Each structure stands twice: as structure tokens, then as C-alpha cells.
């Protein structure tokens, strides 16, 4: 293009013009980076260290004095049945959610890619819950799950099946929230898989079919192995998001206006919700800070596992 020829000659022909823009550049850099560094240092970096320090102190709500107590908060945490229950719930949530999410999303991606004309139509449709509000959709699902008047039990009744307690049952509450989360998120994972499928070179399939491979073989030998980066990405982002789940549990758990989230009997309690209750209801900030550090370490491990998994694929 014309700009190609302008650069080398321009740069060497008018060296004396350089200094003025440089001053300009310095101003632009300063105007951008000084506020950026201030914001990051004050609101992003400082709180992390403050939180680490705070987790080592007895730190009660409005009292600005923090008394250093060493690892006391962490020691309490290791024996706190609610905290252990929260971790276990997150684990079971992940076990129920991740495989179902991945299988459903991959099947949807393959099916929708195969529909041709209606591809955009179905993609738009299945992606729709992803863009809508968590709080709003969770409220509607709470209504659907309602034991006496909810649509799910009304439908069960119409088919002559026994009514379920769903969110009010200790055993059904967590799976019910998993089902809501699947409905909300499967379109997101599906779009990631669709992007992954698009990245696979058609010629692999053509070569395989010429060599007499069946569609089934092509799927297992070509599609799945080449989707590996997508699988890793979906798995890791899914796990990180699951570890931090808050909104759906906050809305879906708790039958009365004043019942705290995480119930019944802590069966849907997860770390972010427990942390919220501890820090902002009981104003036990130090203990809550210790929870967030533990959660951070878990997330860090998951992230490190991701870079390991991605590196291995080079071989």
C-alpha cells in the first residue's frame, strides 16, 4: 500500500520532525498510565495485601484496630464444619455440572453446526439465557421449583407423579441449582465448542473419508483430539466460575425473606456465600479474609493446572 513506501523514506527524510510528536507521546502515555497505575495500586493491589494481612488478624467490622493473631483464623477454618461443607458442596456441584455441561454443549455444537440453514437461528436461541440477568432468571426458576404452586410440580401432578420438594429438600437443592446453572450456561460452552469446531481444517476430514474412515471414526480420531484446547479452556474457566458462584445460590436458596442463603441445612452453602455471611452479616472480616485466601489458592492451583495441560499438548 502507499503507506508502505511512505514510512522508510519519511522516517529518514525528515528526522528533524521526530522530537515534537515525542513530547506528545509522553503526554499521552502520562495521561493514560498515571490514572491507571493509581487505580490499580489503590483498588486492586493494595486490597490483596491488606486482605492477606487482615486474614492474620482479629478484625471485627467497624473497629479499625486489628489485632494480630497469626494463623488462628486458618486453624479455625480447618475445623469449621460449615466451611468444609462449603468446599464439599463446591466439589459435588463441579462433579454434577462440568461433565453434563461439556457433553450437552458439545452435542449441541455438533447438532447446530450440522443444521445448515437454521444454524444462526438455533445458536441465537440457545445462547439467549447467557446474556440475560442471573438474578432475574434465578427468581423465575425459583418460582418454577416452588413446591405447591410451581410449574414443575404442577406438571408432575398432571402426569400423576409425586410432587418433589426441590429447593426445600436437603438432597435435591444442590442438583436443582445445578440444573438452573446448566440451563443458563450451556449456550456459552456451546459457542466455545462451535468456535473450536470451526478451527478444524476441513481437509483432515476429507482425507479421512477418502481413506475410508466412518463419520464415527472421524469424530473420535479427528474432532475430539483437535478440540483439546477448547476442552481445557472450558474445563478451567468452568471450574473457576463454579468456585466463585454466588448469585444463583443467593437467590435460589432460602424459602422465606429472612432465611439466609446456603440452606436448607447448609446443603447449598458454598465458600463465596459463607464468606459473604461471615464478613458482611456477622462483620467478622478477618475470618472472611482467611476464606478468600484459601479460595484464591485453590483457584491458583486450577489455573496452574491449565497451563500444564495446555503445554502438554505440544508433544
Amino acid at each position: 500500500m502507499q503507506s508502505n513506501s511512505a514510512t522508510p523514506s519519511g522516517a529518514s527524510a525528515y528526522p528533524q520532525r521526530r522530537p515534537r510528536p515525542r513530547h506528545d507521546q509522553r503526554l499521552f502515555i502520562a495521561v493514560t498510565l498515571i490514572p491507571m497505575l493509581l487505580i490499580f495500586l489503590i483498588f486492586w493491589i493494595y486490597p490483596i495485601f491488606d486482605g492477606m494481612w487482615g486474614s492474620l488478624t482479629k478484625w471485627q467490622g467497624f473497629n479499625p484496630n486489628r489485632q494480630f493473631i497469626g494463623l488462628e483464623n486458618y486453624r479455625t477454618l480447618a475445623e469449621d464444619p460449615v466451611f468444609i461443607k462449603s468446599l464439599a458442596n463446591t466439589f459435588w456441584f463441579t462433579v454434577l455440572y462440568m461433565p453434563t455441561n461439556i457433553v450437552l454443549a458439545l452435542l449441541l455444537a455438533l447438532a447446530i453446526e450440522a443444521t445448515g440453514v437454521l444454524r444462526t437461528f438455533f445458536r441465537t436461541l440457545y445462547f439467549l439465557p447467557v446474556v440475560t440477568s442471573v438474578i432475574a432468571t434465578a427468581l423465575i426458576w425459583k418460582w418454577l421449583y416452588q413446591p405447591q404452586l410451581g410449574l414443575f410440580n404442577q406438571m408432575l401432578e398432571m402426569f400423576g407423579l409425586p410432587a418433589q420438594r426441590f429447593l426445600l429438600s436437603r438432597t435435591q437443592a444442590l442438583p436443582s441449582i445445578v440444573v438452573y446453572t446448566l440451563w443458563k450456561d450451556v449456550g456459552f460452552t456451546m459457542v466455545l465448542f462451535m468456535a473450536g469446531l470451526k478451527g478444524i481444517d476441513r481437509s483432515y476430514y476429507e482425507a479421512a473419508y477418502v481413506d475410508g474412515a466412518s463419520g464415527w471414526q472421524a469424530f473420535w480420531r479427528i474432532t475430539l483430539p483437535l478440540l483439546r484446547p477448547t476442552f481445557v479452556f472450558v474445563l478451567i474457566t468452568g471450574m473457576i466460575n463454579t468456585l466463585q458462584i454466588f448469585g444463583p445460590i443467593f437467590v435460589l436458596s432460602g424459602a422465606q425473606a429472612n432465611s439466609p442463603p446456603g440452606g436448607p441445612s447448609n446443603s447449598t452453602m458454598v465458600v463465596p456465600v459463607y464468606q459473604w455471611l461471615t464478613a458482611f452479616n456477622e462483620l467478622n472480616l478477618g475470618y472472611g479474609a482467611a476464606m478468600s485466601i484459601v479460595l484464591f489458592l485453590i483457584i491458583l492451583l486450577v489455573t496452574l493446572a491449565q497451563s500444564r495441560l495446555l503445554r502438554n499438548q505440544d508433544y
Partner: protein
Amino acid sequence: MSTALKREDTALRVSAQTRRRVPWGQYVLWVVLGLGSIVMLGPFYWMAITSLKTQSEALAFPPTWWPQKPTLDNWRGLTNLTFGSFTVFFRNSVFVTTIVTAITLLTSAMAGYVFAKLQFRGRDLLFWFILGMMMIPFTVSIIPLYALMSRLGWRNSYLSLIVPIAFTPFGIFLMRQFMSSLPNELIDAARIDGAGEFGIFFRILLPLSTAALSALGIFTFVSQWDSFLWPLVMIDDVSLFTIPLGLAQFRGRVGTDIGATAAGAMLAVLPVLIIYLAAQRQFVDGIALTGIKG
């Protein structure tokens, strides 16, 4: 060479044959995906018709699939609830979301330009540092940030919702990646023509970055519109509530006040839904590109 061509030729013919054989399979796919669509859209449909039903009809068994006596009472009632008015919540949400989105777009583009196209000492180190910040989960900083906001007196103020995210590592990263792909020659040519750095940024780079800006804008808008945990911690004053905070008040009233709950939920969903259906491609691509959920 010729054998390769022939191979491709047969491959094309094979795939053409299979394509011709499929049609009935296509219908099966459409039916299955259509049934799945009912599951995906059902809750929205149920929310919409429930918001138009009378209280007694909403609680009736067997359920009605279409409002028998459609009424706007639930919607009118939203302006006058025991805990506040959704007119106020809606206005607050629009205000905060618009400001945050505008600031994010500007600061991300500026910083993206600085990191992509300008030279200064320590640039790459700083950029890596910002990348590292993306890995910090919000749950880690929420408690100390709460304490900091209390000290600053920014609780129950939109400053607490806006200022900490005036710059975001993610936005900077996205814009930097995009602007790196723009040709340097354009910038050099403009400099030779005597354009200042701000002129280059606003007149050349911003107009060329609309694709990335719209992706980032959509992502920021949707995640801010839905933002819940941080506002929940920061805002107690009902007159400052955003829509998610107002909706959360229905948490324990779902069984008793379903009409108002459905209307409020519709109010939260509708604006995003309209923008989504109008620009679904940018939405899907943008959110897939960002790789992080809203």
C-alpha cells in the same frame, strides 16, 4: 500434484453424496433442537405470561398457558412496592451501566494504544503485570475493598461502583491485542503529516477499532447490568438500588408475590434481550471472544 487434485475431487464428491443423503436426518435434528428450544425459552415465556396474569390466575391449578384476563397491574405495581420503585432502580441501573461502559471503552482503548503502539521503558513488564492481575479473583479483594470504601466514605455512593473499575486489565488486554494488529504505517504517516498523538488516537485508531470496541462494550454493558455481589455489599440505600438489588428483594416473596416478581424480572431481561436480538452476532462473537462470562 494431479493425484492430490483428484483426491480432493473425490473427497468433494463423497461429501456431496453424504450431504444429499441426509435430509431426513436434518428433520430429526430440527425436531430435537426444537424441543430443546422449548426448554431454553420456556422460562422466559412463563415469566412473560405470569407478569400479565392476575394473582389468582398465576396461582391457579391447572396452570393456564395464556393469560385469561391479561392485566398490566403487576407492571404498574412495580412503581409502588413496599421496598421502593422500579422506576428508580431502572434509572439507577441505566446510569451506572452507561457510565461504566463509556469509561471502560475510553480507558481500555487509550491504554491498549499505549501498550500496542508507543515505546517506553518497562512497557512489556508492566503489560505482563496487568495480565497477571486478570487472574486475581474478585472474592479475594472484596473484604479489604469493603473496608477501604468504608474509610473513604464511598459506601452508598456510585463512586464505589465506578472508580475501582475505571481501568480493567481485561479491557486493556483486549484493546491492546486488537490495536497491535493495526498497521504502524498508518500512524507513522499521520505523524509525518504533523498529527499530534491525541489526534492520531481519536481520529485514526478509535474509528478503526469499532469491532473490538463493540465487543468490549457489549461485554461490559451486560456484565454491569447484571452486576450483583459488589453493589449488594456497597449499597444499602434503597433510593440508590440498581435493578439486580431491587430484584433480590423478591428472593423470599416468590411464592406470594409472583406477579410483581415476574414483571420485575422481565424489566431486567427485556433491554438486554432487545439489544441481543438486534445484534446477536456481535453478542455471541464478543462474549465468546472475551472468554469470560458476564
